[in-house]
């Protein structure tokens, strides 16, 4: 730094006021740096490192040779890995469509009922949203108990009302396990689309609804032709977030049916398969960080590309009210 000259005209004194002004900037920097560091360390770095790891051969946690697309080739096309991948992917797709119908569909119906201010709407507005704020771990654990084949509340209830023949080991039966998980997810999360749709409905100007009522007395026409197009922004949010959630599905199946997607992979989804492959588990035995990373990268790309494309498409049909 140059020394100040005698007459005071030098770069140093000129800088002093700038430093004083940047006190505010310093404060902003001070506040911004921690979250940026955390983001970089725990979000951006892992994404890029996973991308890198996916191209290496791994022995435990020791990085081996660069193998190009071999890990991708294994998880996508080489048996038995490929079969597991596609099975898990198929389950993800099923989960997505099922939740689209049950969770978002029911969410819309509930939102509509709450919006119409049917008796008890205030109570139900809270009741419907309550499970959303519960921890997935707790929900999974409690419902796992409910589904217990012998002591579970579900089967006990069925027996109590004389429907004992319907009692089944819900989470152990290949026909019901995935459906049971989907049901629990919908139960827990239906409050979210309900709230988003309700917010959308409440934004519709009442005069537009009045104008429509002057032209039709069919509630269905009103919903189909006027209300649904006007809550398109809510639908975009619900659809895209459900898509991302369905293909990232992990916590609930992990807690309720374990890492293997039991029984026999009937509840296996990509999230579970990725976790098993990357970090290993007792039953599978295998652990391959490279393949795990390849799976993670593929999931990321699939979700990112589809979600982006779909969002762009959905946003196009939205209009400003």
């Amino acid at each position, binding site marked *: 730094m140059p020394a100040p000259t005698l007459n005071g005209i030098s770069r140093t004194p000129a800088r002093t006021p700038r430093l004083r002004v940047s006190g505010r900037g310093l404060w902003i920097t001070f506040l911004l740096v921690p979250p940026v560091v955390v983001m970089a360390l725990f979000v951006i770095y892992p994404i890029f490192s996973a991308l890198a790891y996916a191209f290496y051969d791994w022995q435990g946690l020791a990085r081996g040779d660069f193998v190009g697309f071999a890990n991708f080739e294994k998880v996508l096309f080489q048996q038995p890995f490929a079969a597991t991948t596609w099975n898990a992917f198929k389950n993800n797709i099923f989960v997505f469509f099922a939740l689209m119908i049950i969770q978002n569909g029911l969410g819309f119906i509930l939102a509509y009922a709450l919006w119409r201010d049917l008796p008890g709407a205030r109570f139900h507005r809270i009741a419907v949203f309550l499970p959303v704020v519960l921890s997935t771990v707790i929900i999974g654990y409690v419902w796992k108990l409910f589904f217990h084949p012998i002591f579970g509340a579900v089967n006990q209830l069925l027996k109590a009302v004389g429907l004992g023949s319907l009692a089944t080991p819900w989470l152990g039966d290949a026909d019901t396990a995935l459906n049971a998980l989907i049901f629990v997810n919908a139960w827990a999360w239906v409050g979210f689309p309900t709230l988003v749709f309700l917010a959308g409905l409440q934004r519709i100007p009442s*005069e*537009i609804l009045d*104008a429509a*009522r*002057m*032209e*039709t007395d069919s509630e269905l026409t009103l919903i189909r032709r006027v209300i649904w*197009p006007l809550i398109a922004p809510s639908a975009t949010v619900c659809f895209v977030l459900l898509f991302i959630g369905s293909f990232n599905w992990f916590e609930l199946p992990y807690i309720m049916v374990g890492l293997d997607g039991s029984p026999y992979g009937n509840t296996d989804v990509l999230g579970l398969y990725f976790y098993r492959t990357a970090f290993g588990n007792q039953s599978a035995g295998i652990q391959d960080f490279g393949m795990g990373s390849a799976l993670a990268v593929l999931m990321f790309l699939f979700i990112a590309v589809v979600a982006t494309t779909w969002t762009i498409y959905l946003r196009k049909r939205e*209009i400003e009210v």
Partner: protein
Amino acid sequence: MAQLSLRGVRKNFRNVEVLRGIDLEIHDRELVVFVGPSGCGKSTLLRLIAGLDDISEGEFTLNGRSMLNVPPSKRDIAMVFQSYALYPHMNVYENMAFGARLMGLSKDEVQKRIDETAATLQLGPLLQRKPRELSGGQRQRVAIGRALVRKPAVFLLDEPLSNLDAALRSEVRLEIAKLHNDIGGTMIYVTHDQVEAMTLADRIVVLRDGVIEQVGTPRELYETPANAFVGTFIGSPRMSLLKAVRDGDRFGVAGSGAVLLPEAPETGATVTLGIRPDAMALAPAGDADGFEAEFEYAEYLGNEAYIYARLGDGTRISLQGDTKALTHRPGDAVRLRPNPAEIHYFDSETGRSFRRT
């Protein structure tokens, strides 16, 4: 053909009585304006006629048929809303076609009606546009067009001009008058603006606090108001109300002296005089007749001037004056001479008008 009849119509929202017994007959091809201050129930009454709200008590018939259990879309009534309420996701054509199609009209008929309406309202070039791409005046025309396409028996218009700027307002007002002339339907028009009411209406219904104060032609309301409220509500600048004490034919106002009003009807000893700006004039200088008042200020409008003065008891008076005679300064003492033939006499207690016999 449309004959509307309301008998003993009441409307409550929870514990609040918004309309307290409305009796009204609206004839075919009539343009009736509901006017009144905010909260008087005029928009509520319109919504009851539309069917958007249910009538709490009373009967409403259209061409002799009770409308109480008929949904809005089956009443053969179309409505133009204050905010226009166009469907934002449909273009102009679809906005107009939506209701027409739901009536079960054929595709050709819908097309024909939209073509006609678009020609009447000059909407042709706008048919493919979305409402957000239109100006306020254009949206207004589409909203009217949407109602026209259905060819309803009754048109309801809820403050249709209040979202337009002043210049456009008088233009659209003219268009509505012309439209009513051309299509000849029955129209009910709600406004809080008495100028709109006066210029458009065949008959005006003045409402206050959920009751009808008076029904009549603009001329009837202006010339023979049923009470002081109607007198002050209709006409601009508003009628001045003077609390006077009567002694024979002399009417005195505290602190301003008395004037002789020879043609007065029978009244009590105290009476409220209703004087419109054009029913009183400044007396020439040196003239000893008239109410003593203090000149406050004048509004110069070019062709005329409005003069404001204060009487001895503090009542402010407005009168229409000659621009050339504006020589007074604020604080000057002036004399105001009323024209006896144009004075209205109201009961000081009830506000009801005393009629000349």
